[in-house]
């Protein structure tokens, strides 16, 4: 026991173990210095506020303005590139517009249920295989999967919402993005530029999303004259007539009504189907050939 005490004393005086070589001391100093440096370097001058949800990137106001400017130029010149639409959509979705949507959702029972459940649409949650085989021919689910196949898209290719600051408003915007394909389904509009513009006009009138309004206002000027005349003579009047009077589509719980008959559903929400755009374009091409 005395031996242990002696050894313990030696250890506390640093005489027991081999003394550190100068290189070992240098290494320890270096790791200490580098960890201190890490702390210091990490803080830096430019810090962002805390995130409200995992994918959140809190932007400062000047960055939002730059994003609006950059995305709008890009989206006007090349609307097929998704990143501009995404950037413009999120940066222009100011809290005022999304708060209106939230109020709309809260004042409806189904809307409240959606806000409570926070459903996330993916190919698994919608069970695409079942949709193809199980549901009746004229149901919403069947029409949806037919539309997906026809246009060659999938519910998994939606961008995450990153630039909207409030967490619940970010969910509402994500829900809007996910339901966009269903809006295509019940109106039958294809994903060609003209179809998207017509749908954007409808969405703006029904939901009030600013990006949809900007698209409806400016995008036609980058299309051909024939397309513009179709938009202004057929589809915009249709959008005005239906978007303002039909039930707010944000309050539709799509996942729960996949088996319902699509015509019946349209009658219920007071929506009439616009003329088939692909048909019109095909006829136009045939006439032109003659």
């Amino acid at each position, binding site marked *: 026991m005395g031996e242990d005490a002696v050894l313990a004393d030696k250890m506390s005086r640093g005489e027991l173990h081999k003394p550190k070589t100068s290189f070992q001391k240098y290494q320890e100093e270096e790791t200490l210095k580098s960890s201190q440096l890490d702390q210091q370097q990490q803080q830096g*001058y430019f810090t962002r506020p805390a995130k409200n949800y995992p994918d959140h990137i809190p932007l400062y106001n*000047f960055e939002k303005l730059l994003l609006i400017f950059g995305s709008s130029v890009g989206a006007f010149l090349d609307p097929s590139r998704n990143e501009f639409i995404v950037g413009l959509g999120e940066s222009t979705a100011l809290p005022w517009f999304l708060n209106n949507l939230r109020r709309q959702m809260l004042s409806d029972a189904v809307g409240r249920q959606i806000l409570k459940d926070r459903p996330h649409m993916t190919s698994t949650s919608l069970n695409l295989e079942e949709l193809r085989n199980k549901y009746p021919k004229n149901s919403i689910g069947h029409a949806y999967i037919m539309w997906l196949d026809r246009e060659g898209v999938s519910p998994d290719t939606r961008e995450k919402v990153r630039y909207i600051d409030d967490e619940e408003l970010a969910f509402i915007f994500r829900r809007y993005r996910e339901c966009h394909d269903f809006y295509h389904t019940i109106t039958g509009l294809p994903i060609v530029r003209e179809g998207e513009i017509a749908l954007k006009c409808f969405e703006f009138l029904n939901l009030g999303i600013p990006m949809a309004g900007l698209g409806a206002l400016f995008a036609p000027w980058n299309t051909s004259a024939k397309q513009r005349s179709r938009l202004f003579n057929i589809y915009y009047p249709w959008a005005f007539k239906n978007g303002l009077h039909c039930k707010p589509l944000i309050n539709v719980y799509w996942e729960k009504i996949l088996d319902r008959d699509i015509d019946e559903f349209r009658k219920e929400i007071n929506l009439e189907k616009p003329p088939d755009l692909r048909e019109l374009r095909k006829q136009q091409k045939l006439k032109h050939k003659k």
Partner: protein
Amino acid sequence: MNMSSVLNKSIIRTLPCQSMLGCRLLSTSFPVYQQQGQHESVDNAGKTTHFGFRTVAEEEKEKLVRGVFSSVASKYDIMNDVMSMGVHRLWKHHLINKLNCGMRPNSNRPLEFLDVAGGTGDIAFGLLDHAYHKFGDNLSKMTVADINPDMLAEGRKRCSSLTSYGNSGRIQFIEQNGEKLDAIESNSKDVYTIAFGIRNFTDIQAGLNTAYRVLKPGGIFACLEFSQVENSALDYIYQAYSFSLLPLMGQLIANDRDSYQYLVESIRRFPKQDVFADMVRKAGFYVPGKGYENLTFGVAAIHIGVKL
């Protein structure tokens, strides 16, 4: 690592790379953002290192870096021009002129150049051009090594379409990890250059030690890398620019915010000029003077070492 090319293809699909064809989901396999100031664990079972401001396992970092450069490869040169407003060309020219390499007219032994992490080849072509125009040297050989096959593919494309070295056999592009350089013999190179590559190494000191190994006695090591700006006022402006405008430009021009966010964070993480000069000394090089030259107030710095 022979699995590297197999891994690379799967990484492109799972890491946050945006397809040019249209909407593509930002994959959730990019780990959740860690709190700042978390200390690095040092137990052997899970050795970690930094990836920008995030802490990741050491084995992961190589894959993640490879993923970043695969996703930026095709727009690499455009983005460099936009981000640095063309100044990166001045930096690279300055490096090439400073090194002033080339087989002298009265010599009969061509030089062996090695450009590491030189994927798209701009330093490589610049060095050979300088050697030819200044000294009439059209015999020296160049090896471009890069860990990322997509960057090498870009380099090969540019070599055959934009330069006259395409068919000359003087430039070879090899896929190598800069920390090991397995395919390169020791004491075989006259000049080792690495421009804007060493900050992506998992173990920077290992990279420097390998550089020492492959150089011949008398060989020169030159590293051009982002560094810390010494003046606090300029540093403030520089950081505001890097952290706010660069990722935004990456998002709008290259559709890839996350890769550019990683790039600016990795710049912050890189050791200061004098610390890095000490690391070069530790690898065994003789470092003349203070060992570095600041460019643009310290935004970039050239570090030189000589193997004696």
